[in-house]
């Protein structure tokens, strides 16, 4: 009746909840699936090819680093985090971006963004956003070439092979589609030409905004509805909490309504801010990354509000048309500071850590 021997003393508890890291990653991937499939449909085969090139590169980058450090490769890859990093990066790229953008981005995300810091859980910046920002700064032109929606089975849509040729650059980008612009980019360029928003948005060539997402934009960022559905799934499963998405979207909405109210000719409306660009994807999937965001409720509210505020500032006054990636990185950098100043109150102590007064 001697029980099995263990190497050392086994500490309590002798029970565990069902949650595991691969399970979390799996659910996040599942939540991304609707928006991704919609993106595939909307932008056709080149988007599919870009997706697998990017995620493949991210996974390869991770595997390469693990091999180099002589760590076991398979168990780490199985946690699904590299897949998710590549996936999120792919969703944030222009759908017809060339293959090398996906490769460079994917490798940069997992190698420089993550493995250099020691792998999962140790990185300080969101790997996907690090890669996104690096690509945007290094290759501003291809990273802001947008495709008008060209649904997969429609007449002009490129087929599988044409898609490959577009992604891998052998087919010159002669498709009319390539000349489209996002709403933010359009509004900005029109504003700089001296056309105010009231006129430019009323013009016939103005990009439209739609809840389902039939507009020009990044591969997986256009369908606010599907992204929000995925986000609600994660909320329901308690994989993420409401604090960051709520604080981020509420802050964007607050500033947008404030500024739009002051001068509708210069500032875009709340709806455009929330439904266009990367706000939804950022709020539910990127800013909520466990590793690089604070882990107390108050800290998460501060973090989300910060991302929202910086997003609005960069979108409205900054040099780039979209600011979510920068805002996320900047708030990632501030996370340790936020964590430090938003520690929860310990039972029996006040906020500063001194024991409570004895009050019989």
């Amino acid at each position: 009746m001697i029980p099995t021997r263990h190497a050392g003393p086994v500490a309590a508890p002798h029970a565990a909840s069902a949650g595991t890291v691969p399970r979390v990653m799996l659910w996040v991937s599942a939540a991304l699936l609707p928006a991704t499939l919609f993106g595939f449909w909307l932008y056709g085969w080149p988007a599919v090819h870009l997706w697998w090139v990017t995620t493949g590169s991210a996974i390869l980058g991770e595997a390469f680093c693990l091999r180099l450090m002589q760590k076991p490769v398979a168990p780490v890859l199985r946690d699904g985090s590299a897949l998710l990093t590549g996936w999120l990066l792919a969703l944030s790229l222009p759908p017809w971006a060339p293959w090398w953008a996906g490769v460079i981005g994917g490798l940069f995300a997992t190698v420089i963004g993550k493995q250099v810091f020691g792998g999962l859980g140790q990185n300080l910046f969101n790997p996907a956003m690090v890669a996104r920002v690096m690509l945007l700064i290094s290759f501003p032109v291809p990273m802001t070439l947008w495709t008008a929606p060209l649904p997969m089975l429609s007449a002009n849509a490129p087929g599988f092979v044409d898609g490959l040729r577009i992604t891998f650059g052998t087919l010159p980008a002669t498709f009319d589609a390539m000349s489209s612009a996002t709403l933010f980019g359009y509004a900005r360029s029109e504003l700089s030409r001296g056309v105010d928003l009231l006129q430019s948005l009323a013009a016939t060539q103005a990009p439209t905004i739609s809840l389902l997402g039939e507009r020009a934009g990044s591969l997986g960022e256009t369908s606010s509805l599907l992204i929000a559905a995925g986000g609600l799934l994660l909320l329901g499963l308690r994989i993420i909490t409401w604090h960051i998405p709520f604080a981020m979207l509420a802050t964007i909405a607050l500033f947008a309504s404030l500024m739009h109210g002051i001068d509708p000719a210069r500032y875009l409306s709340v709806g455009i801010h929330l439904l266009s660009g990367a706000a939804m994807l950022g709020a539910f999937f990127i800013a909520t990354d466990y590793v690089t965001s604070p882990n107390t409720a108050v800290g998460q509210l501060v973090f989300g509000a910060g991302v929202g505020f910086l997003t609005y500032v960069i979108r409205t006054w900054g040099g780039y048309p979209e600011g979510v990636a920068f805002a996320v990185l900047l708030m990632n950098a501030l996370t340790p500071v936020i964590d430090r100043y938003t520690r929860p109150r310990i039972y029996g102590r006040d906020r500063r850590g001194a024991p409570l007064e004895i009050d019989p």
Partner: protein
Amino acid sequence: MGIFEKIFRHHPPWGVHPDDHKLPAANAPLRSLPLPALLYVPMQQHVGSPARPVVLVGQHVLKGQLIAEAQGNVSAPVHAPTSGRISAIGEVTAPHPSGLAQLAITIAADGADTWCERLPVDDPFALAPEEIARRTAAAGVVGLGGATFPAAVKFNLGRRLKVNTLIVNGGECEPYLSSDDRIMRDRAAEVVDGLRIVMYAIGAREALVGIEDNKPQAIAAMRVAAAAFGNVQVRPVPARYPMGSDKQLIQTLTGKEVPADARAAEVGVLVHNVSTCAAVHRALRRGEPLVERIVTLNGGALTRPGNLLAPIGTPVVDLLRFAGVSGRPARLVLGGPMMGIVLPHARVPIVKGASGILAFDAAEAHVAEAGPCIRCGSCTRACPMGLLPLEMASRIGADDLAGAAGFGLSDCIGCGCCAYVCPSHIPLVQYFSYAKGELSARERSKLRNDATRRLAEERVARLEREAREKAAAAARRKAERDAAKAAAGAAARPLPVRIVKPASEAAT
């Protein structure tokens, strides 16, 4: 209880809700263990100094006879759990995670189970409160919820600090365990009488019995038993681990928060376990010292799980045999799965604080490999003390114990919620136990250092004193010699004298 209430049932913002696994063991009727042949009674079954044996090998003792007396202020005596012969006083494996040995008295039972003379009290409320505390202490009653703090010490504390409210802990939030549940169902009258004696002993005006709402029969039984006493209220509390922890139960029932580094009594409440109250009842009304307890036998490797009434000192192996083991248990746990300790083998005796023995099958004992922390924050949400387990563990991992202490390591109650919810299966509790132990070891070595320094200083002082005394003695002898010589010289012709050894040299 509508659906609405089920969905929005209020639960505290802390803690976890593990599968409770209490059935079918909790519903199996209480059984008595047949008397084992050999009982190993450890000397340290309580918080404080170990008891000191007062019997000799070979001596015959009766059930309930004092075999080891309390030593010091915080300690408890130990009594013979059955009648028989003392066959050894030596070391046995302690019910302790280290698996190290500790002193125990071995009794070979004679099978008669003859009680020694008992001194029951008909009306404990006629005694002075001090006398109740004295009798409780003499009966060796300690906290039976697991903390094993000597009960009488708490009585005196409560009386001194004018405690108003007695909280009776029937939480039993640990999964698998049902010994408190059982005692409330089967001996509710004893529990209520015991808690009234405790109230009287500490001078409390009201008693709140907190019982988790997953034990409806216990709540009903206790309500019936307490119906006659207006100042005893049975209060169901949400089933949420760790509701049975003093601080959390006090907060749930009274809204009061015990300040850090303070005792509950300082905010006017005192917590006693239901089983402790029953033991107080037996000690006073029947004059029986604490020599047996109800132990929950549970776990996937047992064929007949349930609650057993067993004498203290029974080897775990006897309990397991009685409860029927299927195959070889993958792990033996003393206590509950959240805070219990792993037993190295089954020849460990049960002690006063042993609320349960869990024999896990392979699936239950599965230890998942620890992965890296992904900072998901589940642990911070689960922590009932408002700590940041992930920050503490990462600092302990990097050997920054002082940093971990800065995050409130000393406030950790070791409940295991954080490790339970961790998706990376990081053994957080072990990190904290290690750090706490290491910090207190450092504290000890600092005290030892100070003691050493004092000893070294005393030695220097001693050497100086001895040198001084030697010098003084030499000087005195010289003076005596000189005087003697002078006297002799006065009588005879003075001789030239050469001093052989100057005093200063003698002193070196």
